């Protein structure tokens, strides 16, 4: 053994060549709060990776501000070792991350380094492909319109705010309203959506507590979702530049899979924190502040990121990148700077309200303020057919809601509408971590909207829904659920069977005679 080591060392020493050559170089002239000012580096590119040679080892940094005589850079590693006078070397490469299918199931930081303790991502001999962190979104010519659904498994969303593959749908709401839960449930649901290929899911977490991240990873692992998921984590303890970079790194990884013709779902949790990190970096780099002290290019920060979500046409592989950015509002204020920016960039939003949440309506989706601008084109026909009237009925109910207390004094038609509204609200409730397949959703919505559940008291509806699901899964798996799943549609024949089965169900559970 020792002989082998000696031989190896001997070979390495013999083969050690070190020719000194002319290299570009710079020097740190100012260092504060993770930001360094460098003299020299006249040839540096914007977003170029540079190395600061400190006494404790090299620290990576990115060139941000290219000024007349200096370069402003932000450190990505341990900043405490950086001192004035340290030598700085350019790498000649713009910031990029290694990509490949080896990343699936792993937890990495925004630089592509593993942080899950499972060792190196790429084996020693492998030469991973590097994708630049910043890249222009696909052009008009290579795109096609959104046409394939991406089921979230959440009834309120799949029925009223459908999401298509390649869409950008914002999840917006106050703290503690269930934004992350929607995102996680969507990831979990992907494995049960067998009608379409399972997308690669990328969960980008920005500025969250490590304990929260650990909990989310555990949930995903327990549900078997880590088999197709990559977590890009910039936890609260990491420096602001990593918070800023995390969404771009995640997208670069997503683009690799999209270029391979695969579907990708990426979740940015959340972009308000990323904007705050970018504000910090910009202010430290002395860029002029604008509204709410954000720099002038804050809109471009998010627009260039979300423009990278796309559905590619067949000639270009047909892959897609669906983005679900999350924005946290303060006291429900959607008219703040960042929320309005991101609302205008995305193709719709899912608005979660804390009032609804505390009333027990969970997921707390406000159907009136939530929209999906392109998703309806991709909605599965079966759900479209049965839940088409859902939004309208809910809106009518909201108008009449004020009269609920006086229900006994109202006419029959109004009373019915109120009853139907309450039933819909009850049906749309769903616990977290329990996404429902679209075929089951079709059956539930059919039963609710065709009046099959009208006779059931509201407080017993949850139980009835569970029984209904169970009944269909056990007795009608093949001819009803199976055929909806395979065709994605509710044919007349299946509808007839469904009707009969529902009548039978009501008799069996003893609701009607």
């Amino acid at each position, binding site marked *: 053994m020792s002989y082998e080591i000696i031989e190896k*060392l001997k070979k*390495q*020493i013999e083969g*050690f060549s*070190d020719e*000194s*050559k*002319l*290299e*570009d*170089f*710079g*020097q740190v002239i100012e260092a504060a709060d993770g930001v360094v000012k460098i*003299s*020299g*580096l*006249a040839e540096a590119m914007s977003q170029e990776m540079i190395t600061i040679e400190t006494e404790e080892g090299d620290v990576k940094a990115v060139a941000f501000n290219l000024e*007349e*005589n200096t370069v402003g850079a932000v450190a990505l590693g341990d900043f405490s070792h950086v001192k004035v006078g340290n*030598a700085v070397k350019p790498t000649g490469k713009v910031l990029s991350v290694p990509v490949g299918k080896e990343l699936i199931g792993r937890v990495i930081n925004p630089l592509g380094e593993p942080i899950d303790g499972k060792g190196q991502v790429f084996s020693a001999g492998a030469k991973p492909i590097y994708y630049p962190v910043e890249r222009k979104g696909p052009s008009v010519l290579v795109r096609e319109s959104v046409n394939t659904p991406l089921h979230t498994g959440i009834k309120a969303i799949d029925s009223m705010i459908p999401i298509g593959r390649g869409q950008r749908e914002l999840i917006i709401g106050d703290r503690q309203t269930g934004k992350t839960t929607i995102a996680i449930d969507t990831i979990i649901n992907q494995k049960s959506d067998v009608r379409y290929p399972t997308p690669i899911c990328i969960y980008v977490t920005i500025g969250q507590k490590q304990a929260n991240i650990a909990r989310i990873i555990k949930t995903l692992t327990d549900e078997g979702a880590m088999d197709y998921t990559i977590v890009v984590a910039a936890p609260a303890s990491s420096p602001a530049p990593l918070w800023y970079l995390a969404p771009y790194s995640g997208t670069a990884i997503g683009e690799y899979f999209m270029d391979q013709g695969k579907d990708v779902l990426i979740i940015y949790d959340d972009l308000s924190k990323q904007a705050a990190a970018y504000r910090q970096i910009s202010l430290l780099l002395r860029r002029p502040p604008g509204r709410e002290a954000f720099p002038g290019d804050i809109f471009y920060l998010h627009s260039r990121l979300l423009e990278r979500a796309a559905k590619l046409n067949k000639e270009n592989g047909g892959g897609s990148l669906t983005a679900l950015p999350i924005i946290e509002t303060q006291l429900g204020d959607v008219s703040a700077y960042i929320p309005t920016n991101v609302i205008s960039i995305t193709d719709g939003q899912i608005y979660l309200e804390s009032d609804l949440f505390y009333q027990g309506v969970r997921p707390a989706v406000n159907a009136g303020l939530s929209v999906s601008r392109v998703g309806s084109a991709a909605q599965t026909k079966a759900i479209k057919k049965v839940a088409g009237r859902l939004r309208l009925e809910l809106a009518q109910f909201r108008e009449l809601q004020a009269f609920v207390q006086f229900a006994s004094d109202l006419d029959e038609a109004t009373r019915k509408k109120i009853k139907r509204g309450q039933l819909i609200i009850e049906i749309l409730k769903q616990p977290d971590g329990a996404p429902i397949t679209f075929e089951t959703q079709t059956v539930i919505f059919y039963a609710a909207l065709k009046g099959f559940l009208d006779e059931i008291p509201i407080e017993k509806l949850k139980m009835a829904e569970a029984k209904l699901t169970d009944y269909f899964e056990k007795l009608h798996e093949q001819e009803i659920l199976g055929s909806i799943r395979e065709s994605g549609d509710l044919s007349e024949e299946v509808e007839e069977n469904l009707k009969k089965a529902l009548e039978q169900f009501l008799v069996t559970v003893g609701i009607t005679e």
Partner: protein
Amino acid sequence: MKYGVHIYARAFAEAIAKQPEKYDEYLKRLIVILRRNSDAGVAKKIFSKARELLIRKSGGRRVVLESARPLSEGDLAKLRAEFSPRDLIETSVNPEILGGVKIMIDGEQVIDATLDRKLKKLFLLGI
């Protein structure tokens, strides 16, 4: 600071380049201005930068030779011969580089032939 080092240096260098015979007079005036602006603390940096700009204007480069110990006359002459007579050659001593020499040109390019770097590179190989 009222103005940056670069701005002072550029103004001074450009004035001298136009009328080199007025060097002494301009220098005095610059010192007065620096005092008036309370910027005299960075005078050394300004002169060094101005000198660099003047050398660059005349087609030369500012070369800094860094060595672990003071260079002998012979070594210095040998190294000087490698550069153009228009270049400004400065020397500095930095024991941390252990041995060899580091040549910095215009603060932007470097030829690092120091023992310190060689050792670091050797250790990076995992030896």
